[in-house]
């Protein structure tokens, strides 16, 4: 019979494979999928994986359904949540350039997300475009906004209202972004 320690080691490996390799259109794995593959103890397995990833400046990010965070999540909350591997620390502007993001694109994304947050999670596209036009050349405004929508940072409905989408919830610390913006001297 497999020892408990060996069992966890093999489960951590399997969890890493599930989280790193994209198997669906969107990255990440749903909690119920992990439960099916790793058993009901999967939150503990993810905790062990997270401590391994710490050394590589990576982390296991949990995005709960609906709310941004939960104080004491139940197993049902975990099952409905989506899990990703994200960077633990920050990036330098040089690194973002290697990833195909120019400083203009990043600034535009910061403006778009923070303006949607400040308007209680919903802002009209024209309002956001007006703000972006202040920082980006005119022809890039629409292109950039469409890129943010394609990447899953922002969603747009038929009334041209913008909302925060799945990637923002997975990758961005929204309250830190707003606090930093307000706390920086212009």
């Amino acid at each position, binding site marked *: 019979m497999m020892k408990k320690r060996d069992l966890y080691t093999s489960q951590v490996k399997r969890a890493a494979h599930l989280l790193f390799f*994209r198997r669906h259109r969107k990255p990440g794995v749903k909690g119920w999928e992990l439960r099916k593959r790793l058993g009901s103890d999967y939150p503990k397995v993810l905790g062990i994986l997270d401590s391994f990833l710490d050394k590589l400046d990576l982390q296991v990010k949990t995005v709960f359904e609906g709310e941004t965070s939960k104080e004491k999540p139940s197993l049902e909350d975990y099952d409905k949540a989506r899990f990703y591997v994200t960077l*633990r620390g*920050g990036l330098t502007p040089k690194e973002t350039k290697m990833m195909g993001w120019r*400083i203009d694109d990043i600034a535009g994304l910061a403006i778009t997300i*923070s303006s949607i947050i*400040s308007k209680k999670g919903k802002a009209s596209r024209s309002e956001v475009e007006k703000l972006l036009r202040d920082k980006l050349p005119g022809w890039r405004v629409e292109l950039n906004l469409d890129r943010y929508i394609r990447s899953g940072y922002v969603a747009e409905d038929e009334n041209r209202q913008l909302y925060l989408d799945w990637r923002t919830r997975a990758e961005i610390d929204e309250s830190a*972004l707003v606090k930093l*913006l307000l706390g920086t001297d*212009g």
Partner: protein
Amino acid sequence: MIREYFPEWKLPEDLVLDSETIQHLASVINMQSEWVKHRSTSLYTDPFLLDEKIRRLSREQLGTIFLKSWRPIVEMEQISPQSLMQAIRYWNDLIPLDERWQRTEFTETETGTATISELLEQKVLADKMFSEELDALWRELMQKTTGQEKIKYWDFIGALTFDETVRRAYLTSFLVTYGFATMEINRLEEIIFLKPFKKPISFDKKLVASVPVSISFDDWTKWREGQLE
């Protein structure tokens, strides 16, 4: 409050009137409490305050702030059994090259105009490359007009080859359309000048007119020989 005034309420009408007032007061307090609750959440931000902040901060500052709160997803894309099957099917259905070349036929299509977004969609232009080229051309125009207000259109778009001249004319048309420069036309002498703006200007759509500028090989040859004004 109720305890204080209750002994003075003699008539039922007084009682109803006062309790109605109390109910309205309570609803105001309730709305105020909701407002305070929302404002006290960590995500509450005054939209005007944030707009003002965004306007004051430079692109670099905004970018640096964003990087501090951005934790991008790490993932690996790999070939799946499904995509391998799809590739095999495609390869098997592919007609041999010599057969394909024989079947090549040309169909005549009507000429028309294409917008920049259509060209981007059809992958004729890469958005990143195009915007960078436009940025560079704008800088070049500003550099060439240092110490003077404007430059002759042909002196700016003219290049060593005709192809390059057409490309520069094409990009210049976008500089003018997007408000990075304007055209000044001397109709008597038929000379066109280009004037750059330090900041892009948005024009009143009603006052904007399209100016067709012809770029022919003859014009280019004349410009090269110094005959074209």
